[in-house]
Structures are given as C-alpha cells and as structure tokens.
C-alpha cells in the first residue's frame, strides 16, 4: 500500500473513531442515560409540590451508583465532556502531527 493511501486511511479512521467517542460524551451519553433509566434511577413517589410538573412518580438516582458523592451519570457527563474530550483531542493532535510530518517528507 502506498504511504499516502496508508496516511489517508489513518487520518479518516482515527478521526472517525475520535469523533464517535466525543459525540457520545457530547450528547448521546445523556440520551443513553434517559433510555436506560432503570439502570441509573429508582422510581419514587413524587413530592406533593412537584406532582403537577412531573406526575405521580419520578426518578431519583441510585445512591450506590455515585462517585465522590456525585450521581454516576452526572459525574460521567461533566468529566467525560471535559477531561475526556481534552484527552481525545490531545491524542488526535499527536497522531495528526505525526501524519503531517510524513506528508511533508
């Protein structure tokens, strides 16, 4: 395989994989939390003052699913969208820096 073809495939696949991961942290993660609600939340009686807004029952996070006191889904959301995204970006930059060097030679 020619070097340029190999470089092209590396660029496209590394970018696609990184984008997939960061897309999950940047939006799809919360959709997954909502769809898999029974994994993260318990159904409880809604406090009286909130019934009009949320109905008779509502969901509270499972206390054993927590990290440093934060609900797991909340912790993952804020950490993945910050540190996670930064690390993914840095890894991608390193790969692209190397690819750029190869392109120049």
């Amino acid at each position: 395989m020619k070097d340029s073809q190999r470089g092209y495939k590396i660029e496209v696949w590394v970018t696609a994989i990184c984008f997939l991961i960061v897309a999950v942290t940047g939006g799809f993660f919360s959709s997954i939390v909502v769809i898999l609600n029974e994994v993260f939340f318990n159904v409880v009686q809604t406090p009286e003052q909130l019934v009009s807004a949320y109905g008779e029952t509502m969901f509270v996070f499972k206390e054993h699913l927590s990290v440093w006191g934060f609900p797991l889904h909340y912790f993952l959301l804020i950490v993945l969208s910050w540190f996670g995204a930064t690390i993914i970006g840095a890894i991608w930059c390193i790969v692209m820096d190397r690819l750029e060097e190869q392109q120049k030679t």
Partner: protein
Amino acid sequence: MEPREEIFVLGLILSIIVLVISVMISVWARRFTRSLGDYYVAGRSIGALNNGLAMVSLALSLTTFIGLTALIIEGLYIAVSVYAGFTAAFIGMLLLAAPYLRRHKSFTTMAFISERYGSETLRYISVIVMMIVSVLYLAGNLKGIGIVFYFLLGVPEIWGIIVGGLVVTLYVTLGGMYGVTYNQTFQTIVLLFCLMFPVAIVMRTLGASGWAFPPLGYGDMVPLMTDTVPHYFWAMVAHPVTYIAIFLGSFFGIIGLPHFVMRYFTVRDAKEARWSTVVCVFLVGLVNTTVYATGFAAVYYMQTSGVDIPTAAYDYVVFILVEALAGDSWLALAVAGSVAAGLSTVSGLLMIMGAGLIHDLYGSIKPDVDDETKLRLSYGAMFLVGVGVIIFSLDPPEFILEAIMWAFGIAAAGLGVPVVLGIWWKRTNKYGVGAGMVVGTTLSFVSWIMIGYMGMDPVDIPFPFFAKYFYGPLGWIKVISVAVPVSFILTVVVSWLTPPPEEALQRQVDEMHGWTDYDPKRYNGKGLPITIIVLSVFILWFITTLYDEFPK
C-alpha cells in the same frame, strides 16, 4: 429585582479598569496593523496558546457567566447537559474543521464557502446567515452587559448596553484582529480569576469540603440537595432526542459560528490551530464545570436558607450569591469578570460582521477595490455595525441564553453543514449546499421567529410536521434535530443528483488535508454520505417515537 441601593464603588472601579485596559490594548495593538490581512486575521501570526486563550473568552460569554446559572436553576440537569455538549463540541470542531480551515487561507467562513464551492451566490447567502446568527448572539450578550450595569449602578440596562457596546466598538475598530486577540487573551485571564475565586469562597461558606476546587468539590452536599430537590439530577424530564438536538446544535453550531471559525484563520499553521483547540477545551471545561457548581450552589442556597429569589432575578443570581456568601470584594471581582466576559464575545462578533460586510460582500460586488480602500472602509463599517447592534439590542430577548441557543441551531443548519461537508466530501457541490443552507436556515430561523420572537408554544407552530413532538422543557430545541438532518440530507442528495464540482474545486479538499498531490478517490467514497443519510433519517424518525413515555 431591585438593584443595589447605593453605587457599588469597588465593582465600578474594577469594571472601569477592565474597560480602560481593553481600549489601551487596542491602541497598542494598532501598530501591528499594516494591511487588510493584519486587520482581519492578525497577519496569521497568532500562536497556539494565545489563540487558545482568545477562543476561551469567545466561548465564555456572559451567557455562561450569568445565563447558564439561571438555566441550571430552571432546568437543572438539562442545562448542564447543554454546556457539557458545548464543551465537547470544541473537540468536534477540532476533528472536523479547525486545521483544515487554516490551510484553506480564507479570511472568513463566508469566503470559505464561496471559494470551496465556486459560487458567489453562496457567498451572499452565507453573509445573510452570518448576520442573523451574529445579531442573535450579540443581542444576548449586550443584554448581559446591561444586566451587570443595572446591578452595579442601579441605572437602566439600556445604559449598560450603550456604554458596553460603544467601548467594544471603539476597541475593535481601532485595533482590528490584533487588538481583539490580545484583548480576548487578557479577558480570559481576568475571567478565570474572577470566576474561580469568588465561587470557591461561596462553596466554602456553604460547607463544601472540596471548596478549593469548585468543579468537583461539592459531592458531599449532594445528599442534602437531593433531600430537598429530589429531581435535581433527574435526566428524565426530556425526550432523549432533546440531547441529540443539543449534540447537533453544539457540534455543528460551533463550526457554523463564524466568529469561532475566524480565530483559526489567525494562527500560524494547522498544528497551532489543532493545539489551540486543546488548550481552549481544557479551560472552557474548567470554567463550565465551575459554573455548574455555581448553579448547584444557587439552588442549594435557596433551598437550605429559605431565601426566595424571584424568577425574574435568576439572571442576577451569581451576584446575589457572591454578595450574600462571599462579600463585597469578591463581588467586585465577579462583576469585573462579567464585564470582561461580555466584551470579549461582542468584540469577536463585531469583527466577523465587519469582515463579512466589507471583505465578503462589498469586496465581491466591487472586486477592483484595492486593499487600502477596503481597510479604510472596514474601520467605518465596523463602527456602523457596532452602533447598529447597540440599537437592535435595546429591546433584546428576555432570557439571554435562549437567544444564544437559537443562534447555535441556525448556525448549525445554515453554515456548519456546508463547512463540514466541504472539508470531508469532495462530491459536495454548490447546488446541494445551496439547497441545504436555504432550507436548513429557513426551518430554524422561521421557528425562532414563531417560538423565540413571537412567543408561540412550540407544539402549536404551524410547521413542520414534527411540531407536535416539540413538547417538554426546552422542547423547542428539538427544532435543531429537524433542521440539521434536513440540511444534511438535502446537501448530500442534491449534490449526488447534480454534476460534480470541477477538479480545481475538488483539489482544494486534498490541499486542506495537507496533501501535495491530488487523488480523486480521496474523500470521495460513498461511506460518508450514506452514513450521514442513515443517521439523519434515524434522528428524524426518533423524534416521533416514545411519544407517550415522557412528560408533555
């Protein structure tokens, strides 16, 4: 909400210092401006750290500083999710656009679209979309400056809008992109100090064990919070497609927002463009997570102390919290930070609007005009744009963050889609882009007119077919999950059905990716367009499912 009874002298002094330093930086930076390229893109000489810091201040507008806290009180988890998406979106912009745009050598998004697709008509359309997006974004931020002045001096918001607007107009006009860049760097540093320290003191007063690091320092307060506000962390108040809409709006909106993209045209090379984004996302994440902590603290304070802050005062809640729990000196810092935050975003927007009108519009209508004349006209245009926006902002939207979110949606459908496809799919042509831009922008802009401007209930808007499903908190945000997929589908399908762009235009794609040779097979496969169509159709279908599962 009543303002303070007396003028807040310390806050006023710090705010004036920020304003004066901003103008001084521009006067100093003026010496670097000798050509049109210097004025619009700082001679393409900005390094990664400087550009990263400047981008942070663009991202952290007053909507973050005060609007997000207000939204957290209103919407709790979903508000945090919006900004988590916004933070990660910078990496989306890095992967899909940043270094490639830098290699294209355009000055603006509008020039990129016109040159990549070989169409002057697209240039005019994109200038119109840019003006809509920028005015919406600007109005929200100038309203924020008005809020700060109202709280600070007790004077009507209108004076804050006028004074803040004039100062920004002055220093943008004077210093061009050099002035804007160095100002934004200065304002980021001010903002970081002025947010982190007061919030840490607030968290300490509330009893958080990790107060020294507010972003993750309030875990031990969670049990008491959930006792009083059991739904605080509940993600179930919205249909799952809401979060997909947030993803689409954030990731493609940020690529479509011309004042963000313009920053990449100022850096030295593609490598600097890449690493500046990594610097940016780390600091934006730091500040955003600190603001989540502020929102948490505000709700916690209201619930545990019995203080009732009226809904109308939610935009002031950061100041109320800092004043009550940290004291006047910290409040002065927070006020100065807010002023810096407002100025930085407004300056970036004025810059792109001036560039769009003179470089892209006037320069296209009169291509024979020399650069010196354009430079002179740019000074005048920038000043007139600033004054025009101040006048428009005198009656801005009530809730400032919503205006910004609409701007993201319109930018995603109107500009984000053509930029991304122009970089990654050679087959994209002007016909497809024209169809996608016009329909995508119309869908989102008309929805804003009906919902955001006229105040109609989202489920009652006469079109599109999906309106019935726009229920729930921030239900209108699902408009984005219609407009962006429709824009993608139209761009891909129409491009496929019409003749491919000529080789010179396709060659630009290889050049943007750093290849010195041309290979017609690169970035020209069927995998990407098919994936885009499948995902877009899936999202449109998903909106209409699970209708009975979520609160209306």
